[in-house]
């Protein structure tokens, strides 16, 4: 069994198995809209492989991280645009 780690999504604690990527963790926390486009439209993960840039979130204060390309670490703080 993988170990469980605790992260925060928009300030809310979420427990996920270690090695979960951030896109999966944010989805598990109940979010479908990860960010807003230039014109304000909701956006979320599309390609899942780092190409489309639709799944960007702010991770530990750093904006525009591709959530599908980053693995969760204990204590990580994630913000979506609608937070």
């Amino acid at each position, binding site marked *: 069994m993988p170990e469980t780690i605790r992260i925060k999504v928009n300030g809310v604690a979420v427990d996920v198995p270690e090695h979960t990527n951030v896109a999966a963790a944010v989805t598990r926390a109940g979010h479908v809209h990860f960010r807003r486009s*230039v014109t304000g439209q909701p956006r979320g993960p599309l390609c899942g492989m780092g190409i489309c840039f639709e799944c*960007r979130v702010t991770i530990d204060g*750093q*904006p*525009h991280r591709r959530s599908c390309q980053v693995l969760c670490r204990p204590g990580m703080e994630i913000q979506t645009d609608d937070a």
Partner: protein
Amino acid sequence: MSVPTCQVAVLGAGIVGAACARALAQADFQVVIIDPNPIGSGATAAGMGHILLIDDSPAQFALTQNSRQQWNDLAPELPDDCEFVKCGTLWLAADEDELDEVRRKEERFRAAGVAAEVLDTRQLAAAEPNLRAGLLGAFFIPDDRVIYPPCAARWMIEEAQRHGTQLRTGVSAIEVTGKEVRLSDGSRISVEFTVHATGCGTAKMLPGVPIRPRKGHLIITDRYPGFVRHALLELGYIKKAHGTDTDSVSCVVHPRRTGQVLVGSSRQFDAESKDVDPRMLARVVARATEFLPGLTRLSGIRAWTGFRAATPDGLPLIGPYPELPGLYLATGHEGHGITTSLGTAELIVDHLTGRTPRLPLEPYLPARFSGVPAHA
């Protein structure tokens, strides 16, 4: 077969051609604009869109003051997509020499009655928290602006079209003979005047015009609103911009209205390929990072190049082409064509109508280079 009559043909639908067409149409000329490519797709789309005062010569200072005033007067009319940003310019002083230049600028601006302010180390750090510590100060020009040039060019052409101007993209002018322009689709247009506003293209069509393409690289980041608040230029820029033939980079960083950060710039003569040169781009980013260390945490999303039309003295070529009556040049603006497009258009109308000019005509006349080879 009849040949359609048109009083003025403007070659080039970049920002300079667009400004000339608009001004001529408003002065009741019958205008046709000709460009093989879409509006504003050359140097206009490649540039940074800085509306700024340049005081490296009295003629450049006069032209940029006239032009900036026109831009600021137009601002309320510009469509939203022109992304007009009232950011002002900060010229950054990194050493004592550059601080001396700040003082010289202050004197020149005061003498001209133009608003500007000297910032000390502490004021600069407060104005731009992401700049590295230890810069000695800055020269702040509050009324400089940033715009998105291709949309401004499109808007100027729409304005011209409202005054009856015709736009013909997809065809090129292949021969200009005083009273006629022959186009690539075989058609001919009768003209009283032709205005050549094709930037680097002018030298190809008119051998002997002293213009050399000067390549530049730019890179734009994702959206990081507030990372920089003013258009930032290192004071070494002017020395590098006009003083040397060798490749150079300088720190030029702009905020875009989208929150993106536009980072430049490089200058290279004799670079033939339009491709992004990764080594040159790396030098551009490295130089900007010396001033803005946090730039390394930003994600660059697109890089491109463009070619500035450089003249030997750094001033544009505006006025009659000495070898062919009826042909006028509006070209050679190097890196300042977005700003000086409007002053250029005013000068072209001055020439074509014979009205009393507000600016002196002489410093910009192409005839100042008569007899000088293009590639000295």
